[in-house]
């Protein structure tokens, strides 16, 4: 067996040391009637065979190295410099586990500490944890943290209707067994008035997204006013954000957020069909003892040299058990390492450029699309890299045409999550989209609006 090094002689010697004649004896305490089931699994493949099979399976998927894509909605096609994969492919990093033994884990611990620092710089916050699972669970953890900060005296979470629909779903899944309420997204709030009205002396946390799920940007002043109103009512404010946007935009830490969450996939992690991603989680230092997830802290060793350790673990499940601030154990450490490597490689200038390119290209695309008959860019507010386009026919039909005729993966169909918007598409443009792709999209959208276009349901790749 390829990954098992024992020889027959080894096995014999080991069984002799144990005092058995057959390995079966080691399983004598397993109920006999259930022992050795006949598992119905495919016959084993060699490495050569499995690679062939996987190559074929992968080839059945339309991948974004071959297809132009304008799909975002929480997962984004941003540039990943080659150095990121080189770093996370180091066996010393990816085949280690949680740094329980800090003396032989300084590499990972320092990298994680640097991740915390760079994300603090990006978000304008004082403290950052080592990661949550993704942007959605980071939001749920923020809600639980806020209730803990409020000592369970406030138990309502007010969420904006333009917080990612999946984040709101995950939040509700998380708190279904707790005595907590989630409200706010039944409103059509777009200026925070409804959210502020709903905030009362039972509100633990208000959660908004900026840029929001529909791409809209709220000004720092609007955000500061929201924070002030929320704080005046004794509640906390969490802001879910886009780390790429923070390359140019004022960070939530500068407009009053108490907790900042984000989907960190955009920082050097591949799309990978939805995961593994990275839950970014930043907060004010005064709340550190109520925070969840691992934290890496700086300290010194016995010789007084700088070093790093996991710290404040009395909040965590392996120490505090049922009283822990969260049950999280394994997190997304390697994805956080990718984010750190990405931020280090891009640096101040690279990240700003990525954000600027996304802005310019998205705005160019919006201006062009707005001029097509039948289409309308419907944005009341400024936007960053995503925007809503009202379409002349169902989005699914248009997307099918784009894919079939132009090999373009179109935008996200908003009709299920935001039915009041009608036939509306959320388009995303990043630095990865060329002008040529955008111009093709514009032509394709123009053609797709015609009801005479025949739409073939079968997509062939």
């Amino acid at each position: 067996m390829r990954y098992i090094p024992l020889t027959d002689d080894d096995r014999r010697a080991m069984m002799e040391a144990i005092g058995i004649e057959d390995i079966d004896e080691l399983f004598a305490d397993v109920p006999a009637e259930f022992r050795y089931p006949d598992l119905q699994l495919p016959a084993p493949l060699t490495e050569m065979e499995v690679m062939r099979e996987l190559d074929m399976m992968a080839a059945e998927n339309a991948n974004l190295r071959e297809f132009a894509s304008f799909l975002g909605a929480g997962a984004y096609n941003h540039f990943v410099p080659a150095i990121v994969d080189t770093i996370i492919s180091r066996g010393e990093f990816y085949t280690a586990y949680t740094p329980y033994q800090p003396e032989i884990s300084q590499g990972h611990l320092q990298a994680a500490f640097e991740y915390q620092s760079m994300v603090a710089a990006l978000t304008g916050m004082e403290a950052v944890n080592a990661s949550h699972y993704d942007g959605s669970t980071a939001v749920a953890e923020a809600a639980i943290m806020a209730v803990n900060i409020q000592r369970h005296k406030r138990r309502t979470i007010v969420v904006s209707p333009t917080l990612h629909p999946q984040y709101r779903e995950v939040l509700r899944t998380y708190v279904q067994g707790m005595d907590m309420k989630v409200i706010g997204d039944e409103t059509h709030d777009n200026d925070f008035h409804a959210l502020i009205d709903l905030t009362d002396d039972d509100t633990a946390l208000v959660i908004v997204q900026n840029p929001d799920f529909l791409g809209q940007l709220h000004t720092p002043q609007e955000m500061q006013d929201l924070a002030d109103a929320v704080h005046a009512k004794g509640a906390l404010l969490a802001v879910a954000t886009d780390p790429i946007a923070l390359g140019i935009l004022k960070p939530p830490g500068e407009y009053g957020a108490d907790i900042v969450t984000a989907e960190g996939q955009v920082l050097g992690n591949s799309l990978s069909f939805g995961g593994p991603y990275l839950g970014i989680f930043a907060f004010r230092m005064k709340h550190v003892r109520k925070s969840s997830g691992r934290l890496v802290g700086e300290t010194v060793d016995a010789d007084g040299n700088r070093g790093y350790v996991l710290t404040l673990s009395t909040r965590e499940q392996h120490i505090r058990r049922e009283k822990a601030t969260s049950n999280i154990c394994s997190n997304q450490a390697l994805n956080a390492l990718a984010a750190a490597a990405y931020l280090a490689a891009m640096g101040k200038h690279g990240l700003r450029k990525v954000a600027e390119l996304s802005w310019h290209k998205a705005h160019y695309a919006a201006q062009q699309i707005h001029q097509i008959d039948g289409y309308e860019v419907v944005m009341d507010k400024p936007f960053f890299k995503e925007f809503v386009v009202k379409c002349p026919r169902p989005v699914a039909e248009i997307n099918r045409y784009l894919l079939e005729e132009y090999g373009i993966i179109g935008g996200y169909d908003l009709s299920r999550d935001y039915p009041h918007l009608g036939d509306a598409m959320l388009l995303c443009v990043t630095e990865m989209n060329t002008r040529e792709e955008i111009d093709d999209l514009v032509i394709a959208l123009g053609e797709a609006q015609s009801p005479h276009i025949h739409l073939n349901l079968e997509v062939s790749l």
Partner: protein
Amino acid sequence: MKFDDYIYDLSSPGRTGVDLPDPDVPETPIPEEFLRDDLPLPELSLPQVTRHYLRLSQKNYAVDKGFYPLGSCTMKYNPKVNEWAARLPGFANVHPLQDPHTVQGAMSLMYELQAMIGEIAGFDAVSLQPAAGAHGEFTGVLIMRAAQLARGETQRHKILVPDSAHGTNPASTSMAGFTAVQIPSDKDGNVDIEALKAALDDEVIGIMITNPNTLGLFESHIVEVCNLVHEAGGLVYGDGANLNAIMGIVRPGDLGVDVMHFNLHKTFSTPHGGGGPGSGPVGVTAELAPFLPGPIVDMTEEGDEYVWRTPEKSIGRIKSFYGNFGVMVRAYTYIKMHGAEGLRQVSEIAVLNANYMQARLLQMGDYPIPYGHRFCKHETVAQGKIPGAEGVHTLDIAKRLIDYDFHPPTIYFPLIVSEALMIEPTETEDKETIDAFLDALDKIADEARENPELLHEAPHNAPVRRLDEVRAARHPILVRLPAPAT
């Protein structure tokens, strides 16, 4: 210049690691009011970034470097073909919200993985959505809660957790809004049946049980435990952390477990990544299948297409999209290369290696094994109580093992064994390595008696000496940024 310096110390104004093209579209001005004043990220060149991380990596221990017998974590070899597979453009560069027609290959992989791990552990339905083991536990407890509520049994709020359980079990229980009730172990390391009977009432949602448990022992009364819980109207949650011991040996679903999470990053060889990402799929009986989080992958009735389906009484979405797909690709690759016979061999050798370790330790006599009268499964739990070296503790032994170039075992867990050393060799270690580790433990026992200071001050050969964890907790420094330029 030292490249393992703090990253901001390598920064110089004006450097950049990545060039990006100029805009190929007309520029649109960005309103001033939105702009940030400063972006305090480091400014580095790519050679600096490369050397910085390479040097950091060299200060890390890892399975690719040496023996890593971290109990309950199953630190087996991570096959390189898994990494190749997950990086195929058709897997790595696919957006989760694409039209299902364009991702049939990825969906078929998930569909087959759901079926294969369900078959391995004896469950009718599987959701791959949970991101890690603890996330799977939380999902499983929510499923149990939803099923009990659907039966109208609203009075149930207690979950029984053996005292040998991982901390995540009681923590997951609390997050679901329930009360964890601890059940003691008996003298053989099994769940104490009398204590279980006494705890079972109509307020009990169920039990969370790890089998083999964290003592490395198979719960020999498992069928009775499941029956008792079922008779009391409860459900049985299986913590699958230790599945590596029983693949092809026994299926938890056959024993009466109703819901279980898998740790793809333990049992199915996906790398641990320095603490993640993991993947914690949940398998359930047919009765609980309607409550699984979704969407999961299903096939049309015609059998010609994979589709997304959210089970009708789903507890809801537990994570965005479908779970840690990149981890699933690796686990799929591993299972496909092993087949039924290969997986059984994996478990048999994992258990053989652990018992060889246990037998040799018993023979050595320096590290007591409280349950050494039984064969263990994937791991054995010894104690750092070396006769004649009373001032030496498990922590000292662990730190001294670092000087011998081994990763220490899990220490001080499970909590019911004092001075615990929880050793899990896994099936991918050769006999020479296990022998070398045993030799090191043997030498350390002598050192403990003759020169205990050597242990108290260990490690001596690591990149740093023992770190001041008290100081880190008392005055937490979680972020260090350069002072703003004036």
